[in-house]
């Protein structure tokens, strides 16, 4: 093992009578790989040991308003059970870091104290002095194991504390210990970003050690199983000893292009403050299924500030999207759903596969940060306000349009991603949504180009394309944005939609359309125009063969000439031929007209 020598410091007992710790093998660098023998033995020993579900609860950090009279603690924790039958609770105490929910307790630190509360009632379990920053906690219903940063945030302190407040073990190490878990009186301690030590709380010895070939800094229980992970999730089973050779049971999220590089798990060794940061708002949420071998519901959820997106776990494609009034700050997945906590203190339980609201619970305050644990939630036992009868469910195209339609600059990256998704949907309404976005004056300018690009590639929704082409700039009617003519022309061409030809031809003669768009319209007409468009084509040709002020317009003139030759009679061919020889015809156009070979043979 690389790294410095492990150090195990004798437990100090701050008036609590803690158990003795041992200094020998825990975190040692001369550990010898036993081929997984000890791990398999431990797994066999714990296989029948029941893993308690975690308490389903949301906990928020609220800044206490300065009151008159007695000084109040700077913060208050507010808790709300997510399952029915629970009661709201609050607890005032300074908070320095992010509270942790573990098993049946909430662990938090602040003001030089570390304390634990009953997660469902907020009842204080114990309080003790502590200086380190809280990294994480595990709990099995009897013992809570807490990982803290060492002095100056170097190294780690690990405490095993019984629910009565007595310290059972205290370890100090120069290594970084992540978020621990507790099972069967063993503390599972992820450390150095790649190992998990199974530490016997009773004996104070390292019982087994797991090595992973990728970053692992968290241990936790979910759905009655024990997992380790950070980039992916390893299930604690008979194969976990083969994790370093990639033969263990591992779950990972598919590759995605979500903005902000959201992570399923942040490093368990990271110091997280009492106030939520950007990484809390840009995150991924997913849970293992009942067997622990795949993702529950085959979906995972991404948050990006006010937007939540459901994605297919196999393909990474967007399944649903919803927008909230406030930023999402935390979440936790459960069987069939996800609990998302926002900065306004609202916890929304939503279906992972459809995004439909299952229930909502309010913490009653604006929050500085939030922590959610939804492991124990089961359908039919949700607390809070049940979702009302949904009106007609919106299609994905409608959901995306609603999310893209609101203007907040920080949402642009996810809006651009969703626009790409909208462009690929088979639903003809997606074509209408893209047109609306391209036309709407409130659509952010940076998205208009994306909307037009997606619209160009549409191959259905012809009715909407034709309808949009009927729109023209009209100053008096306050229609101050011309339709996305170039994109509409490309789409009509892609659909071989001749019904769009009259409207396209009318745009050739509309000075409010950009020359670059007119170029696309003329190109489309070479394929889809009919004889009925010939009069407009002749007029366009006459007006611009000698006056086209830029390359786009010149290209449009040549396209129109091509269409005249293709659809017109001898007089049209003569018109083009005459133009090809007229000294007033602009040289680049003249040259290309000559290439059309319209001279009679």
């Amino acid at each position: 093992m690389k790294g410095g020598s492990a150090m195990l410091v004798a437990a100090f007992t701050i008036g609590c009578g803690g158990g003795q710790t041992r200094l020998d093998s825990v975190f040692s660098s001369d550990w010898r790989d036993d081929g997984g023998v000890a791990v398999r033995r431990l797994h066999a020993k714990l296989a029948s040991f029941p893993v308690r579900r975690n308490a389903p609860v949301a906990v928020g950090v609220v800044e206490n308003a300065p009151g008159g009279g007695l000084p109040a603690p700077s913060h208050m924790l507010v808790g709300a059970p997510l399952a029915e039958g629970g009661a709201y609770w609050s607890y005032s105490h300074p908070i320095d870091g992010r509270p942790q929910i573990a098993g049946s307790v909430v662990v938090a630190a602040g003001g030089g104290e570390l304390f634990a509360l009953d997660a469902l009632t907020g009842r204080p379990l114990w309080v003790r002095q502590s200086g380190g920053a809280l990294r994480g906690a595990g709990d099995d219903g009897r013992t809570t194991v807490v990982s803290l940063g060492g002095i100056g945030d170097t190294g780690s302190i690990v405490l095993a504390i019984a629910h009565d407040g007595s310290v059972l073990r205290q370890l100090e190490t120069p290594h970084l210990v992540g978020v621990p878990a507790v099972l069967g009186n063993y503390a599972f301690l992820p450390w150095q970003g790649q190992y998990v030590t199974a530490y016997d709380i009773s004996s104070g010895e390292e019982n087994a050690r797991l090595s992973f070939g990728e970053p692992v800094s968290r241990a936790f229980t979910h759905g009655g199983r024990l997992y380790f992970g950070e980039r992916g999730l390893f299930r604690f089973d008979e194969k976990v000893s083969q994790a370093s050779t990639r033969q263990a049971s591992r779950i990972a999220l598919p590759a995605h292009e979500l903005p902000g590089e959201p992570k399923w798990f942040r490093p368990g060794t990271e110091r997280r403050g009492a106030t939520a940061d950007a990484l809390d708002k840009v995150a991924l949420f997913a849970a293992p299924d009942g067997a622990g071998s795949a993702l529950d519901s085959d979906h995972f959820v991404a948050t990006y500030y006010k937007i939540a997106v459901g994605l297919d776990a196999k393909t990474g494609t967007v399944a649903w999207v919803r927008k909230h009034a406030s930023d999402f700050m935390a979440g936790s997945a459960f069987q069939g759903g996800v609990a998302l906590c926002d900065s306004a203190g609202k916890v929304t339980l939503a279906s992972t596969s459809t995004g439909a609201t299952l229930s909502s619970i309010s913490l009653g305050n604006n929050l500085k940060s939030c922590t959610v644990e939804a492991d124990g939630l089961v359908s039919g036992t949700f607390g809070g306000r049940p979702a009302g009868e949904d009106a007609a469910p919106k299609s994905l195209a409608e959901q995306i349009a609603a999310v893209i339609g609101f203007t907040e600059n920080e949402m642009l990256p996810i809006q651009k991603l969703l626009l790409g998704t909208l462009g690929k949907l088979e639903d003809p309404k997606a074509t209408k949504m893209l047109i609306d976005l391209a036309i709407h004056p409130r659509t952010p300018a940076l998205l208009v180009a994306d909307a037009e690009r997606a619209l160009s590639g549409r191959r259905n929704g012809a009715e909407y394309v034709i309808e949009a082409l009927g729109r023209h700039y009209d100053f008096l009617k306050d229609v101050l944005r011309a339709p996305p003519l170039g994109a509409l022309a490309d789409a009509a061409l892609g659909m071989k939609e001749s019904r769009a030809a009259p409207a396209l031809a009318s745009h050739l003669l509309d000075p409010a359309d950009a020359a670059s768009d007119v170029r696309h319209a003329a190109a489309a007409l070479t394929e889809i125009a009919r004889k009925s468009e010939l009069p407009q084509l002749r007029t366009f040709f006459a007006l611009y063969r000698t006056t086209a002020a830029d390359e786009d317009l010149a290209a449009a003139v040549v396209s129109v000439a091509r269409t005249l030759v293709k659809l017109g009679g001898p007089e049209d061919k003569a018109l083009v031929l005459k133009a090809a020889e007229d000294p007033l015809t602009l040289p680049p156009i003249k040259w290309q007209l000559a290439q059309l070979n319209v001279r009679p043979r």
Partner: protein
Amino acid sequence: MQTGQRTWMARAAWMLLGVACLTPRVAQSEEKTAGTDPKKSASATRGPKAAPPSAPANVTAIAEKLRSGPSDVRAGLTEAKAAGKSARSVAPAVEELLRAGTNLELTGLALSTLAEIGDEANAAAILPYARHRVPELRKAALSALTRLRGAQARAALREALSDSDAGVRGVAAGGLGALKATEATADLFVALDHNVPEAASSLGLICTAEPCEKLVAKLGTLRFDVIVTGLDAILARPAGEVSDEFKIRLVERVRDLRSEPARNYLRDLQARWHMDGSRRVKQAIDQALIASSGSPP
């Protein structure tokens, strides 16, 4: 960029410049008819000026030139324009030139020539240019249509009120006033509310009782220098179209503004009021000035 392209772009730019230099003169000549200038429109009460006599046209020679190269075409158009209505018979050749398309300079010249020698039957050849991508050509086309008159011209001018170019909208608004296009009254009010100032004077030229009241009611809400062009047009209209009572009420409304621009306008109006104009209105102007300035004019 290729050398050929550069030459082409330079040529296009030169031609644009040529049209830009040409069309203001065309537009200006039409604005006299439109009566957008308060001082000029007030003088309209004295009756329109007679057009200067045109030189007799050698239409055969002109027609020959119009079928030749660009420099001959330019000369032919110039001669036809100078000849005025006596060159009427070459109008079809000018139409043909416009239908086949020519460069910007000759297009502008052809439009103004057809306006001089043609009539409303020639409007169809001009209509496509009212939607040309070069705003100066659109303005030239609309000015020409205003001269040619007729239903097609009025429809094109109404449509051009919605143009994307402010200058084009202004020419269209002025043209509708000059053509007494009362059917465009509602559109002109919308245009006025959309900051097309030329709509005010046109409304002043064409409004009947209720629209005139509506226009005057905009005193105090529209910029004074804009609304005054409409008021001026109303005051210049004969008593058969707008009664003295209405004009007196209008003067009193201006007086009640009690602002410096209003007083300046009344002073200017007093100076411009023609001897043949209504004595009662003149009295109202005088009294308004006394009341608003507190001293005799």
